[in-house]
Structures are given as C-alpha cells and as structure tokens.
C-alpha cells in the first residue's frame, strides 16, 4: 500500500496525547516536554516524507497523465448503519492535504519546541499544568491532521469538533483566570453554533447525493453528477437550489472556525490562551480549517455560483473590516488576531473569486486562461497564501510571545524601544511584517500577488478593494512593529531588562523567519491546483507593481507616524475620534452580540421557556417521579422473602399467562 506510513503521522500525536495525558504528573515536567517535542519531530519528519513523496515522487499513483491524483491510503468502514449509510474513517492524500500536513507539523513542531521555554514558568511560578499542556497540544495536532487527511465529509465533521474541543481546552488552559474561561467558552459556543450549520449542510448534501465520500462527491466528474443529482432530488427551497443551501451552510461552519464576519468575535478573545497556542491554533492551523473545507469541496462550489458569491462578499468585507480594527488595537496579540482574520478573509475571497474564473473558463472563450496561466488561479493562490501565511503569522505570534515574556504585558505602551534589547526578535518580527505586507522577495508577496491577480480577473472593483486592504495591512503591521521596537526608549518596569529569550524560543523564531523569506519560491502553481493540473503563472507586473507601491505607502505612513514619539497619532485620533473609537471597540460587534443574546434572546425567548420548563415540565416529571416511587412502594410486598409465596406467584403467573392468551386467541 503506498504511503502506508502516513498512518503514523496521524497516530503518533494521538499516542503522545494518550501517554502524556494518562501519565500526567507521573512524568517530570521537563520529560513530558521533551517526549512531546521528540514525538512531534518524528511526526514532522514522517509528514515531510509523505508530502515530498507525494509531490515529487513517482510510481505510487500520485500523478496519472500529468494530473495529480487523490491517493487513498486507508479507508475502512467505521459505522455501518445501512447499506447506503456507511461512515468511513481513513486517510487520503491530495495536493492540499499533503500541503497541510507540512504546515501543521512544521508549526506544531516549532510551537512544541518554543513552549519548552515559554511554558516553563507562569508569572514567576513554575507552570503547573505543563504535562497537561503538552497532552492537549498532541490532541490538537492529532485532530487537525485527522481533519486534513479525511476521506469523507463526516470524518471532517468529527475532527472539526475535536479541533474545537482541543482549542477550547487550550484557550482555557489558565483556567484560574476568569477571562480565559470566558474566552474559551465563547470560542467553543460560537464555533459550535457554526458547526450546527455545518452539520445541517452535511446532512442536506449527503441526503440528496447519497454519499459522504469526497471521492464520489468531488472526484473526477463526480461534482457535476452529484450537483445534478442533488438538484434533481431536492429541487429548490425559497427559490434557491437545495445544493446552494447545503453548500452555504457548510460554508457557515467553515466561517465559524475561520472567524469570518460576523462569526469572528471569538478569535480576538481566544488570545487569552498561552501565546504559543495562539500561534499554532489561532494563526496557522485551526483557523484555516474553514478555508480548507471550502477548498476541499471546491468543485461543488464552482457549480453553485450563488454560494460562491456569498463567500466572496463575506470574505472581501471581513478582510477590510478586520484590517480597519487592527489599525487601532493596542494589545499586540489582539492586533495580530485581527490581522489573522483579515488574511484568512483574503484566502476565502481568493477561493470565491476563483470559482467564477473556473466557471468562465468552461466556456469556449479561453482568454482568461491565456492571461492568467490557467483556470483556478485563485484557488492556487489561496492555498499558497494559506501556506505562507501560516509560516509568517506563526512567526509573528511567537515573536509576540517572546516580547510578552520579556516585558510581562500585552499592551504596546509597556513595550516601546525594544529593538536595542531584543535584536533577534526584532529582526524576526520585521521579516514577518515584510512578509505579510507583501514586499518582495518575502513569502507573502508571491502569494498575495496571485490573490490580487485573481481578484482583478473577477473585476476591477474586487482587485482595487483587495489592493487597498493590502495597503492597510502594511500600515497596521508596521504601526505595530514600530510601536513595539521603536517610538521611544524602553521604560523598564520589571526587575530584569528585557532580552532575547532562551534558545528554545529563539531557534523557532529563526527557523520560521528563514522559511518566511524563502517560502515564496515554492512552486505552488505546480503543486496545489484545483484540478491537479499544473498552472503556468507569470508575474503580472502591473498588479505586482501597484501592490508593492501601495504596501510601501502603508509602510511609509506608519514610519512617518510611529517611528519616533510624536503627537501626530494623537491628533489624528482626535480628528477622527468617532471612527477611531468605533474601530477600537471593534465596531461594537461584541456589544451587539451581548445585546441580542442577553436582551433579546434571554429575555424574550429563554425566560418564558425556562418558566415553562421549571413549572410545567419539571412539575410533570416530579409527578411522574412521585407516582413511580409510590408504585415502587406498592409492589414491595411482592418481595416477601418467603419462598412459598414466590412459587405461588410463579404458578399463578404461568396460569394467568396461559388463560389470558387462550381467552384472547381462541375466543
């Protein structure tokens, strides 16, 4: 069986979770960390082996006629309900799954290594739940890997939930802090709400197409047949085809995990978790699960333009919305969180705009293919950006962790002027900023450029809008960078002068920084395309030039405002105080949710229901309970302990049984 060792990639983190979770305190703190990290290292090596063999090897069914194939490694039936309803569990490799293996294991390994130093103490005390922390990391990595190699959409759902649970556990890791507990609850509830739609989507989809399996849903020629079948069976609901409904619901599930507006509210709060966790889960892996999901079902979405348009609009709006908020945040992790939301929205938009270009290219006019090197450029760009973004965003978060560790605060007012004290972190952070701003030759430039090309192909407006957001990205990232590392001299608060961290924390920074420099040169156009055929892209100089120019403008503006301490930012703030305050308060989305849940839902819906529940339902239940207890007391004398009585009852029972049936059947 080709790639049979890929099972180990998934199994090893699970094993690590079980070992660390079950042994818990019986392992030393350091031992637990080292076991976890070494296990993750082995997993990473294996995952690289799988991915490299998949992309560059031959002879194991990866490429047939120049098209990359899905290789199903292992796919046994797990739950057989009926002949048709079979839930399978397995491992399948396709280009994006192989790419995700690399992303997840790389970032996870870096986080494991980094946490050895970062988690060693908590506010001066030795960290208590060290073993628990590593066990949860293992659980998360397992869930995420199981998600990306899924062979069917039900498996995706199961692992989606597990990802949610492990994210919940990790956000609430500092469970003694009320803020962390609130944040973990919020994250869990919001994503669960979204997953409800996801489940609904899955049920509709599989009800009308009769399958869960990706192979038959989106395999060669499968999508069109399935959509036709689904539409034929399901017809339309409220004027929209049933398949579009299903796909939109599935997107909502993905949007919950990927923090698309208006389901983004949990992500900024999730920053209450340990910073390496934010790097792993809320920057690089879990939050792209939604993008991954849409990409996985891309051939279906292509055939349902309605659903794709929804995604495109949501994505484009979220990208801008989050970027605008990021410009005002003073908490370094929250700024990065909004930046993540914005970047993921880039990926979503890119996927969505790509569908129209794929659909167009089906028509005889192949002009677009000529210009942009092939169909589905946006798909490729989105996946490419997912890859590069994971690297540089993890880098930025880990840098943030190092800084927070050094100064003991999340607020950038406590930082300022750290460049002299933490040169390695500063340079790594700068590389991350350059990458996300899209300055060549850093990784972000290449992927973002292709996203913009895909957007221009959809329409000039889309292209301009996204270019503007890219400029905003450059601005807020450099604002953050300059406020942390420059602005004024550092005013020391703690006992120690801030300095670069322990090597376990610095090495991951250096590695990720190196990856962020070179990742753009990965030939993604050859590797991750929607139909498995390589694209022939070339740099579009107009788009590239204009986006670099806009990015430079953003950086220049930030430089002008934030390099040295001055009152220009304050004056600007005062001039647009309404807008600034609104953005700072995240346009009051949280308050809106609070209002809707507390004032509307709790007051008008929950309270009457609660009353009904307490008085009527509980009353009925209590009545039943009392009656049952009463009956139990009534039948008690039957059990007298006298064996004569037992036998008499026995005989009477047998006779009554016979007599009753004779009476019923014969008479």
């Amino acid at each position, binding site marked *: 069986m080709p790639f049979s060792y890929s099972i180990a990639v998934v199994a090893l983190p699970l094993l690590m979770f079980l070992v660390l979770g079950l042994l818990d305190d019986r392992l030393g703190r350091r031992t637990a960390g080292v076991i976890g990290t070494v296990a993750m290292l082995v997993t990473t090596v294996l995952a690289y082996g799988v991915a490299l063999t998949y992309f560059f090897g031959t002879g194991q069914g990866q490429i047939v006629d120049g098209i990359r194939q899905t290789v199903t490694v292992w796919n046994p039936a797990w739950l057989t309900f009926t002949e048709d309803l079979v839930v399978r569990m397995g491992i399948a490799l396709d280009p994006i799954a192989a790419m995700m293996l690399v992303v997840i294991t790389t970032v996870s390994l870096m986080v494991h290594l980094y946490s050895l130093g970062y988690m060693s103490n908590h506010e001066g005390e030795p960290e208590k739940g060290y073993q628990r922390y590593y066990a949860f990391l293992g659980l998360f990595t397992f869930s995420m890997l199981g998600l990306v190699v899924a062979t069917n959409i039900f498996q995706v759902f199961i692992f989606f939930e597990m990802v949610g649970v492990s994210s919940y556990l990790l956000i609430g890791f500092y469970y003694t802090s009320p803020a962390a507990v609130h944040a973990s609850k919020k994250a869990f509830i919001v994503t669960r709400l979204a997953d409800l739609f996801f489940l609904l989507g899955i049920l509709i989809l599989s009800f009308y197409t009769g399958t869960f399996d990706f192979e038959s849903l989106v395999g060669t020629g499968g999508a069109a047949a399935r959509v036709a079948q689904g539409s034929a069976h399901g017809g339309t609901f409220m004027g929209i085809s049933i398949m579009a409904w299903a796909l939109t619901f599935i997107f909502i599930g993905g949007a919950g995990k990927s923090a698309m507006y208006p389901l983004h509210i949990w992500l900024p709060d999730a920053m209450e978790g340990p910073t390496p966790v934010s790097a792993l889960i809320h920057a690089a892996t879990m939050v792209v699960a939604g993008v991954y999901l849409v990409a996985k079902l891309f051939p279906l979405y292509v055939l349902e333009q309605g659903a794709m348009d929804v995604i495109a609009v949501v994505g484009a709006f979220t990208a801008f919305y989050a970027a605008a908020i990021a410009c005002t945040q003073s908490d370094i992790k929250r700024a990065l969180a909004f930046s993540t939301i914005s970047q993921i929205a880039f990926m979503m938009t890119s996927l969505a705009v790509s569908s129209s270009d794929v659909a167009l290219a089906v028509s005889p006019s192949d002009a677009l293919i000529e210009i942009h090197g092939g169909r589905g450029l946006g798909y490729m760009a989105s996946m490419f950006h997912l890859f590069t973004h994971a690297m540089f965003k993890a880098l930025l978060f880990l840098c943030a962790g190092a800084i927070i560790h050094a100064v003991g605060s999340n607020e950038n007012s406590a930082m300022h002027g750290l460049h002299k004290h933490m040169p390695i972190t500063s340079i790594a952070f700068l590389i991350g900023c350059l990458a996300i701003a899209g300055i060549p030759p850093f990784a972000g430039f290449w992927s973002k450029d292709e996203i913009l090309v895909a957007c221009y192909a959809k329409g000039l407006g889309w292209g301009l809008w996204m270019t503007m957001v890219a400029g905003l990205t450059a601005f807020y990232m450099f604002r953050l960078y300059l406020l942390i590392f420059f602005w004024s001299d550092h005013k020391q608060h703690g006992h120690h002068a801030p300095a670069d961290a322990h090597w376990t924390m610095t090495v991951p920074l250096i590695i990720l920084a190196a990856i962020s420099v070179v990742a753009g040169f990965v030939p993604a156009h050859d590797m991750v395309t929607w139909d498995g055929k390589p694209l022939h892209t070339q740099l579009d100089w107009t788009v590239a030039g204009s986006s670099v120019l806009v990015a430079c403008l953003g950086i220049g503006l930030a430089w002008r405002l934030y390099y040295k301490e001055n009152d220009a930012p304050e004056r600007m703030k005062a001039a647009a105080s309404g807008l600034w305050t609104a953005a700072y308060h995240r346009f009051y989305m949280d308050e809106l949710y609070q209002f809707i849940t507390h004032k509307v839902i709790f007051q008008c819906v929950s309270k009457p229901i609660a009353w009904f529940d307490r008085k009527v339902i509980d009353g009925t239940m209590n009545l039943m309970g009392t009656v049952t207890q009463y009956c*139990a*007391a009534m*039948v008690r004398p039957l059990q007298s302990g006298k*064996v004569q009585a*037992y036998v008499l009852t*026995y005989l009477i029972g047998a006779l009554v*049984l016979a007599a009753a049936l004779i009476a019923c*059947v014969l008479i």
Partner: protein
Amino acid sequence: MDYSQFLMMPQEIGLLTVFLLVFIYDTFMPERSQRALPAFTAIIFGIFTALTMCPCLAKGGQAFGGMFEANDATWAIKLILSVGTFLVLLMATKWSNSEFISVRRGEFYELLLLTLFGMFLMVSARHFLLFVIGLETASLPIAALAAFEKRRYESHEAAAKYLFTAIFSSAILLMGISLVYGIGGTLYFNELAVALTIGRSALLITALAFVIAGVGFKLSLVPFHLWTADVYQGAPTAVTAYLSVISKGAAAFSFLIILAQVFGAAYSDVWQWMLYALIILTITIGNLFAMRQRNLKRFLAFSSISQAGYIMLGVIAGNAVGMASLMFYVLVYVFSNLAAFGVIMAVERESGKTTIDDYNGLFRTNPWLAFTMMLAMFSLGGIPPFAGFFSKFFIFVGACQTGSVAIYVLVFIALLNTIISLYYYLLVVKAMFISQDDCVVPAFKSACGERLAMVLCVLGIVFIGLASCLYAGLNEASAAAFPAF
C-alpha cells in the same frame, strides 16, 4: 456409531478437556500447589477461549441424529459465554483462595465449568430432551455454588431458595414439554415445527405458557423473578456475577431458538403477545424495585431483571436481526455487568461493605475502582459512546424491524424505562463522586486477577460499541444461521 460427529462439537470437547484438567489437578496435585489452582484454571480456560476464537471452528453441522446443531451463531454465543466465564474466573482467583473457601476450591471450579457445559448444550440443542438436560446441568450446580460460603447464613438461604424454585420451574417446564409431545408426537424442534401447524388448541397455548414460564425462571422474567434478589444477595459475589450474565445469555439465546423454531410458524402472534406482556412487566417492575434498593447486590439483581427485559426485545423480534442484536446485547452486558461485579467483589472482600451508602466518596479513596464502576453504570444505563448505548440501539432497531405498531409502542415503553433506569444507575455514580461524606472503604490495591478482568471490562465497554465490525460479524453469523429454522 459415526464418531466423526463429535467433530461438530469442538467447543464442548474443549470445555470438557479444561474440566478434566482442572479435575486432575485438583485430585492429584499436592496440597502446596493447590493455591495455584485458580490461576491454573483461569490460564487454561483463557487458552481454551482464545483457541475457540478461531473462526474455522464456526463450521456448521448437526450431530446425533439432529439433536445437536452447531452453526455460526451458536459458535458466537458460546464464545461470548466463554469470554464472560473467563472474566469471572479471573475475578474469583483471590476470593477462592480465601480462608473458608479454599478447602473446596476445586469443586467451585469444577461445578462452574460443568454449568457452562450445560449452557453449551442448551444453546446447541435441537431436541427438547437435550435441552432439558443442558438446562438442568446448567442450573442445579448453581445451588451448590450459591451455598459455597458455608459460614454465612444468607448463603444457605440463597441456595435453598434457588434449588426450590429451580425444581419447581423445571416441573412446569417439563409439564409444558410433555404437553407439546402429546400434541406433536416428537421432541425434535424441526419436526415439531411441522407437527404443530395442525391448528390452535387451548392445550398447546397452555404448553407454550408453561415453556415460557420454565425458561423465564432462568431469565428471571417478572413474575418468575422473585428468587432473584434473595439469591443474588446471598450467594457469593463471584457466583452472582456468573449467574447474572452467563446463564442469562445462554437462556435468552436458546429461548429465541425454541420460540422461533418450534412455535415460530403458526404461533408467533401468541408467544409474541405473551412476551409482550412479560417484557413490559419485567422492565418496569425491575426498574421500580431497583430504585429502592440500598444493597448493591440486590440493586444489580433488579437491574439485571430489567436488563433481561431488554434482552427479550431481541427474542420478540424473532428474526435474524433480533438474534444478532440479542447476542450483541449479551456481549456488552457481559462486560458492563462484570465490571460492576468486579468492583463490588473487590470492595466486599476488602471491607465487607455492600450498600450504596458505603460507596460514598469512593472516588477519593479508590479512584480507579470508582472510575470502572462509573463506566459500568454508564454502559448499563446506555449513555453514548459506551457499549451499552450501542447494544440498546441495536436491540431497539432489531425489534422495530418487525414493523408492527404494537412493537413500536413496546420499544417506546422500553425507552421510557431507560430514562428511569438512568436515575438509579446515576445514583451510584453520584454516591461515588459527588457525595462529600468520608468514605468508609479504605484505599486498597486490588488483586492481580481482578484488576486484569476489570481492565478488560473497561476496554470492552469503551471499544465494543465503536468497533462496528463486531456487530456486523454477529449479524452475518445469525443471518447465516437463521434460515435453518
């Protein structure tokens, strides 16, 4: 005589070999090696069970002029019974070496293995004579086993009550069988199936009711259940554990075969209505009594009565799916109930405590035992994702496949009772985990054998439901075995 027909009964022959080995060991080995007898028995019985797991033994066939039949389904149910007995043997090792038992240790094992042999015969019998022989072999030694703790008054009481009721029920059963013989003129199941199609008579319905009452004793269906609680409480816990799962499993399986094969064609509506009433009574009364018990062994006695009602749902279905779900239910029940009994046995041995109140705060002194007990209760109550949920699910599905509205109503009543049963199962969990009282059971280390048994039970509870191949395999086996009727 054609000796090759003995090849049809590899499991019985294997079991007899185990029995003989134990017997030889007990009789001829010197006194100082006798302490190793429990371990010896457990090991060779384990080897026997492992060997019979080989599917090549599942080949079908009839022997002794059609009195005995082996097929995939009988192979599977015998295997399940063997696994359960193995667990009981593991749990009993420490107990049977205790002061007052050790003198007659060998007899305990010999009698136990003989009853299992009787059950094997019951399961494979296709002739009423062989069935009765199997049934008696399976029941009478139990009375001796129940009396094993000679110094305890309750143990005697249990044995006397058991013996008396067992004899009475046998009389009723034989009465029923003789009536059947009088009408049909034969005792072969397959010939009776033809002979009884001649027409309905009051006599035959009486016969049917007596047969049901006779087997209902083994299954402790209400109103033939009254002995259960006293015997369960009085008998040594190892015997209670054995009685509550193994003998129930065997009886339920052969019950299904008799009803489906002998009375299947012409009388299915009659016995289904009889069972219908019995099931409702059994589940409900079992639950009502279980709620008020404070002694854990009595509590489990009533819980097992109510569980027997659920097992009967597989019988009332009377089809291959019913048989598969019945076997699956028994399999899960073996693991869940034995886990609970394992804990009770360990706690009783160490502290002599058996009431629910004694378990208050057990979690703080013996967390692993409390954890095992919790899983057992969850599984018995049918909480997903533990095995008990799946077994209940499948048995309901099996019953619903008959498609009649009355059965849907029955399943609904059973579902309601599941909720009631949750109440008392969770009472135990609540006592162990939530109750703030100081625990009267001191912290102790369980013996090696019972720890192994409980680990196996926990693994079974957690994984049997998830490993769907098991149910699929049972389904295939019973589908292959069923057309034989």
